[in-house]
């Protein structure tokens, strides 16, 4: 650069955009104008090919014939990819092997990829993919958790967490109960389906655009299937149209297949799944079956718990080890378990491999214990809220250690619940609902307050690291890059706010650039709610390095003490002098000060000894609670959610608007999981709910008519997180459990709360009706 850009000498204002402000999403203006580019929107090279997979049509069987002649002859078809064409590794299992990129000999689920065709148009590729002549020797398929468990068919070994002698505690407790509950899976239904665009590069390299939460894993797997070094592959993700865990590992296959065809044809290749195939061929939230025996006293206090959690994993391990572990880590929710025996089983079925979904097993574990609490309440005749309160963790009486040995250090749940109980008018409403139900033979109301305590950190320790890259240019503008991906959750906005605060510049001067493996390498998935905790800290580190260099330079150049160089409001004071940020940057550039820095962060304090099933897997916990009120029609099973009150802990919020959005959206998604979202498989193992018409995610009319959301005020994180904020991605999903409990509560009123309803999730109107009918029958007998 020969001459420097002219910079305006700005008045001391702002900076706009520091943490704590309810700023709009950094891409909002592009979202509303239609300019925001998603993977399928990239301008592809003119000779781009469209790839489409041919999928299996049995759940379990031997592939005996795959005749692709008519596929090859179909109009527009340029090439076909089969397993034999893969030059490198053929298994793309993210942690353990088990996910062949295409079927070799054995089909293990309906919808498994057999081959991929590349054609000149999307339409031609899709049509051609259906022309294959395929024959199978069909084998018996295990489709349910019970079938898999009966054969002890597991994708990974079981894990056990123990405290004390649960068996003895249950035996000696005044009251005992046992039961079981099932929760269904959940389709992510990210509105943007899986999509990738791969463009061949020189040296045999590949440039990959993909809608993925884990660019680094995509890079690694594309390199492995191509048989080339990771350094020859670059993966770029600017944004996703929703992900929710469904694009953590399940985006990889489509990027790999597109890359393989791009390599084979020498042309750019795009692969976008149609919705029905996306729903058939990609994994979902694990369905679970839980069996429990619990010992407790007449005050509702738990003495001992024996809980077996079995997750339906589908055909391969994928992330199921960590998911079932997280279910086990959340089987206590907010309750102290004096003696516990928690087992977690990873059951294999001949269905698509289930995967990460917001909460990652946590919701399933939490639903199990909340059902137990409800069961205890019916048995003791206590209000369920009272049972909950009596079992909360507390600092006193040694009731502050989890069943996996982590000490609870911030006791927020009791005060948070008390605040919500008051603000929602819980007790008065409980009273009036009881009166309403006595006088209403058909319509019954239900009310429930449920807490959430959710552990923050990846339970796989090494994933708790992040990198960032910041460039400052000589006009004072800044480029920010980090390993986190943007899926709508506002991560880019929050991280930019952190940098704006550190450098005391306006948010507008910071450009968030697309997440790219050649900018920040070896990144972790954007998952486990840890996006802003990890990347915010890494970006802060990078910003601080540049700031420190600028301070050292200014102090030396103007002969003042470093302590007298101060960044504020887009300006820098150097002793008595004052410059705009850009002016100082230009002076530093001319004096050959580097204006680019990488940043890094790794979460402290965390570890888990899996052999001893003990440790501190979580840096901290995020808390929340919700009160839901519902009305059910006991003759049809139909219901409405009337009112929801939420109080949620995000520490000191980095961006209250973003955080409230996460709380509201997470709650509704959790409510959907437990109410209307039902996955139905046929007896042949084929998913029958393959579109948005048969699989019902909440629409606007399903949301509560009265919805009040508050972030817990004055509650900074006690740990040294970025500006003492807390993670918010996953925890609010579990607030949706309050809707399921309220439905259960309304059903229980049919038998005047003397009997405990049996209600599996999702509590569809059909299940609600069946539960009412069952309760009436039991009440009469």
């Amino acid at each position, binding site marked *: 650069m020969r001459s420097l850009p002219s910079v305006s000498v700005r008045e001391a204002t702002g900076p706009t955009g520091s943490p704590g402000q309810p700023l709009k999403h950094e891409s*909002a*203006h592009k*979202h*509303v104008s239609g300019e925001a580019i998603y993977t399928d*929107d990239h301008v592809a090279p003119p000779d781009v090919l469209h790839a489409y997979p041919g999928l299996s049509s049995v759940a379990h069987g031997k592939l005996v014939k795959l005749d692709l002649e*008519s596929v090859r002859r*179909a109009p527009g078809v340029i090439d076909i990819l089969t397993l034999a064409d893969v030059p490198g590794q053929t298994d793309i299992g993210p942690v353990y092997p088990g996910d062949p990129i295409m079927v070799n000999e054995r089909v293990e689920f309906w919808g498994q990829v057999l081959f991929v065709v590349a054609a000149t148009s999307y339409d031609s590729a899709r049509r051609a993919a259906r022309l294959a002549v395929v024959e199978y020797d069909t084998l018996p398929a295990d489709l349910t958790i019970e079938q898999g468990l009966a054969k002890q068919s597991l994708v990974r070994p079981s894990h056990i967490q123990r405290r004390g002698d649960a068996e003895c505690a249950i035996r000696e407790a005044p009251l005992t109960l046992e039961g079981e509950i099932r929760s269904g899976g959940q389709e992510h239904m990210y509105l943007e389906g899986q999509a990738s665009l791969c463009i061949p590069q020189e040296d045999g390299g590949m440039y990959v655009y993909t809608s993925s939460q884990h660019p680094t894993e995509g890079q690694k797997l594309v390199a492995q299937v191509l048989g080339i070094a990771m350094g020859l592959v670059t993966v770029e993700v600017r944004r996703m149209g929703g992900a929710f865990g469904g694009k953590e590992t399940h985006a990889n296959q489509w990027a790999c297949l597109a890359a393989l065809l791009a390599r084979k044809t020498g042309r750019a290749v795009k692969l976008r799944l149609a919705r029905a195939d996306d729903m058939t061929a990609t994994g979902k939230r694990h369905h679970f079956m839980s069996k429990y025996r619990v010992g407790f006293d007449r005050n509702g206090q738990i003495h001992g718990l024996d809980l077996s959690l079995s997750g339906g994993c589908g055909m391969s391990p994928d992330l199921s080890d960590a998911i079932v572990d997280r279910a086990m880590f959340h089987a206590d929710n907010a309750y102290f378990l004096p003696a516990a025996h928690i087992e977690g089983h990873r059951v294999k079925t001949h269905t698509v491999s289930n995967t990460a979904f917001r909460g990652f097993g946590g919701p399933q574990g939490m639903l199990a214990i909340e059902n137990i609490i409800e069961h205890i309440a019916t048995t003791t005749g206590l209000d369920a809220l009272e049972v909950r309160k009596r079992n909360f963790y507390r600092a006193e009486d040694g009731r502050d250690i989890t069943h996996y040995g982590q000490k609870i250090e911030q006791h927020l749940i009791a005060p948070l619940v008390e605040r919500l109980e008051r603000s929602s008018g819980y007790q008065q409403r409980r009273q009036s609902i009881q009166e309403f139900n006595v006088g209403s033979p058909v319509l019954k109301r239900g009310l429930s307050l449920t807490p959430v305590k959710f552990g923050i950190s990846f339970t796989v320790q090494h994933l708790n690291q992040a990198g960032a890259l910041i460039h400052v240019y000589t006009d004072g503008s800044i480029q920010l890059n980090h390993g986190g991906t943007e899926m709508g959750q506002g991560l880019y906005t929050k991280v930019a706010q952190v940098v704006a605060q550190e450098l005391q510049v306006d948010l507008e001067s910071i450009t968030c650039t697309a997440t790219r493996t050649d900018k920040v390498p070896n990144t972790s998935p954007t998952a486990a709610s840890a996006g802003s905790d990890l990347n915010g800290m890494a970006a802060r580190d990078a910003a601080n390095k540049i700031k420190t260099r600028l301070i050292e330079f200014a102090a030396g150049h103007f002969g003042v003490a470093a302590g007298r160089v101060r960044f504020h409001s887009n300006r820098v004071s150097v002793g008595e002098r004052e410059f705009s940020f850009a002016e100082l940057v230009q002076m530093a550039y001319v004096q050959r000060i580097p204006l680019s820095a990488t940043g890094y962060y790794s979460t402290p304090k965390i570890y888990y000894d899996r052999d001893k099933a003990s440790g501190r897997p979580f840096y901290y916990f995020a808390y929340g609670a919700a009160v839901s009120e519902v009305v059910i029609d006991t003759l049809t099973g139909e219901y409405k959610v009337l009112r929801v009150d939420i109080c949620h802990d995000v520490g000191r919020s980095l961006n209250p608007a973003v955080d409230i959005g996460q709380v509201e*959206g997470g709650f509704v998604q959790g409510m959907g999981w437990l109410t209307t979202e039902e996955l139905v498989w046929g007896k042949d193992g084929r998913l029958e709910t393959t579109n948005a018409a048969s699989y019902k995610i909440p629409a606007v009319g399903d*949301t509560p008519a009265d919805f009040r959301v508050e972030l817990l005020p004055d509650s900074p994180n006690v740990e040294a997180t970025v500006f003492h904020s807390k993670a918010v991605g996953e925890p609010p999903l579990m607030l949706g459990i309050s809707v399921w409990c309220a439905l259960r509560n309304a059903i229980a009123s049919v038998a005047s709360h003397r009997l405990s309803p049996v209600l599996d999730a999702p509590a569809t109107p059909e299940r609600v009706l069946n539960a009412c009918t069952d309760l009436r029958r039991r009440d009469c007998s």
Partner: protein
Amino acid sequence: MSETKPEFVEAVDIEITVNGKSYQRSVEPRMLLVEFLREELRLTGTHIGCDTSYCGACTIRLDGDAVKSCTLFAVQADGAKVATVEGLATEAGLHPLQKAFSEHHGLQCGYCTPGMLMSASALLDEIPNPSDKDIKKRIAGNVCRCTGYQNIIKSVHAAANELREA
């Protein structure tokens, strides 16, 4: 699996006015309107979500009506006036709905936003002072997986207020 072999069919000449500008193209009869907008005209603000007209990410306005462009053929729009999200803003700036969705956090991932805006614009043309119920009814065919809808409802109200005051 056996199906009839796909055949290329003769192209049909059509003329569609999109965001005030007339386009003449030759298209295959089976080309969907959403494909026409995205591929022929590169108007990628209209998104493909579910392929089956349920999710509403592809909502556009066809002669004023909010419709799903994934279940209409381009040839069905021959001679019609189509409005997409790219046509909402004017030289004076963003449409009040665009401003409101942006400022009131009526979006997260942004994928449903263009369709949501088109449905909401049809609503406000018809009912300038909508109730919550009106809004819920008119965006019932647009699903959002991120926001939980509260801020979307707020955004539509805010835009309605601004439009009424203008």
